[in-house]
């Protein structure tokens, strides 16, 4: 089904602090913008797939949103896989379209942890709280330490990732954080949980994003401008909590990436631009290794030296990613991938024909990968 389903429209809200807005309201704004971008009437939508809000999970959220949007979708519901969910929902929608279960799908996500509750990101990890084990950054710091000790990965190499992505975000007028940093400023950034500094950690943001999917044929009949074909997708699950994981420096992103690239008929060397889930800098480094851009253990040197910056060999997170555009989990990376494939990104990679997008959740528990091709 390579290329048979397209992303026909994308939309999002402003990113940052959006006090007083419910996640339903934010989702509707993003969906309204995505439908307008695609030129599709709301009543043509027959699938609505949503990742539930991380900071306030609710029973039957997919139906709550469908009611608020006046939709009776054939295919609809919420899917919880942490930060991997958005690309997984896109892949489920693509398969449903391919097999005639629906024709036009909305995939969306909204959350408001910035002005609402950050509890989901700072909570205890069960009984291990007795040892002081709290917070999402700690799990990633545990992976980072092992990587650094096992392979000689350095703090400066993690810093190079932050420098590249923050630089891209500074150029993005929609980014929540438009302040580039130098490596020297990164080195002065305070520890949160050593070996991760404040500037290794993503933003906490209110906001929403949405994409519209349909068949390539339907997009042609509707005369959708610059529809972006989905070339491949794949998932993988590492499942074990950090403490129980037998190997802290490899993840099932290898599985999701290989599945997506195989479906696309491409190899890592064929990818022109990458949008890599950057909840923390170490996540980018380990995902690039898992996808085959660098050999295992060599992600540190790969990420240094400007390779990830605009104009480099593999520009990463060209709109600023979670570190700079918005901390919301992942759908914004898909939207930036679509912009790159349409050729209208702010930091546009010249002649970009292929883009890989990663989503992941938990502490690299869940992985979902998307490969996009140049707009039709």
């Amino acid at each position, binding site marked *: 089904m390579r290329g048979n389903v397209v992303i026909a429209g994308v939309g999002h809200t402003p990113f940052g602090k959006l006090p007083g807005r419910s996640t339903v309201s934010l989702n509707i704004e993003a969906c309204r913008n995505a439908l307008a971008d695609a030129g599709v009437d709301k009543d043509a939508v027959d699938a609505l797939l949503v990742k539930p809000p991380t900071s306030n999970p609710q029973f039957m959220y997919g139906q709550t949103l469908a009611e608020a949007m006046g939709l009776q979708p054939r295919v609809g519901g919420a899917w919880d896989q942490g930060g991997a969910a958005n690309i997984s929902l896109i892949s489920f929608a693509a398969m449903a379209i391919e097999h005639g279960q629906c024709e036009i799908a909305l995939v969306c996500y909204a959350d408001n942890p910035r002005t609402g509750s950050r509890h989901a990101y*700072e909570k205890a990890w069960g009984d291990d709280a*007795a040892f002081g084990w709290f917070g999402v950054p700690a799990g990633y710091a545990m992976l980072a330490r092992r990587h650094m*000790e096992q392979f000689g990965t350095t703090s400066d190499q993690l810093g190079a990732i932050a420098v590249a992505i923050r630089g891209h975000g500074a150029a993005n007028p929609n980014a929540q954080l438009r302040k580039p940093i130098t490596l020297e400023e990164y080195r002065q950034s305070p520890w949160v949980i050593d070996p991760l500094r404040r500037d290794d950690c993503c933003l906490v943001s209110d906001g929403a994003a949405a994409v519209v999917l349909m068949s390539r044929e339907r997009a042609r009949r509707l005369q959708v401008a610059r529809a972006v074909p989905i070339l491949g997708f794949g998932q993988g699950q590492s499942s074990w909590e950090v403490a129980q994981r037998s190997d802290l420096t490899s993840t099932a992103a290898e599985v999701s990436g290989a599945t997506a690239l195989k479906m696309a008929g491409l190899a890592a060397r064929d990818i022109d631009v990458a949008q890599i889930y950057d909840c923390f800098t170490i996540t980018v480094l380990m995902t690039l290794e898992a996808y085959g851009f660098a050999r295992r253990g060599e992600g540190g040197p790969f990420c240094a030296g400007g390779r990830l910056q605009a104009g480099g060999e593999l520009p990463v997170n060209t709109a600023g990613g979670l570190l700079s555009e918005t901390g919301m989990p992942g759908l914004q990376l898909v939207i930036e991938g679509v912009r790159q494939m349409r050729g209208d990104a702010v930091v546009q990679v010249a002649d970009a024909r292929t883009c890989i997008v990663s989503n992941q959740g938990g502490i690299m528990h869940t992985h979902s990968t998307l490969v996009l091709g140049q707009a039709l």
Partner: protein
Amino acid sequence: MSRDRAEAAFPAPQRNETNGPYWQALDAGRLVFQRCAACANAWLPPRTECPRCLSPRWQWENASGAAKLVSWVVYHHGYHPYFESRLPYNVAVVELAEGPRLTSNIVEAAGGLRIDMPLELIIQSEAGVALPRFRPG
């Protein structure tokens, strides 16, 4: 923070039918883990079925106390009031000689930490709860 307030705030493990024997063994000075009677897999934390073969038949087994350091982090930000007064503090992943891995703290580590370094069990009381911690061994 007064001792009373600190104890009141300590995030004590929630004992239940599944993990009760684990914490009771620590109270008695022993670290135990589960071993599958069907496939001999060993694991922590306590579960009702073997995650390798799904058997519900398993036994508790005493750990030797020998272990090695898998990884560690150092908190410089307090996520819970009980731990703010001890910043910076470490949390580690430790692998027992018998295989199971667990979250813990490394103590008496003035000589520094390195991955795969040998460790030994030391059971310490924290707010009245016996916790399995480790020191260089």
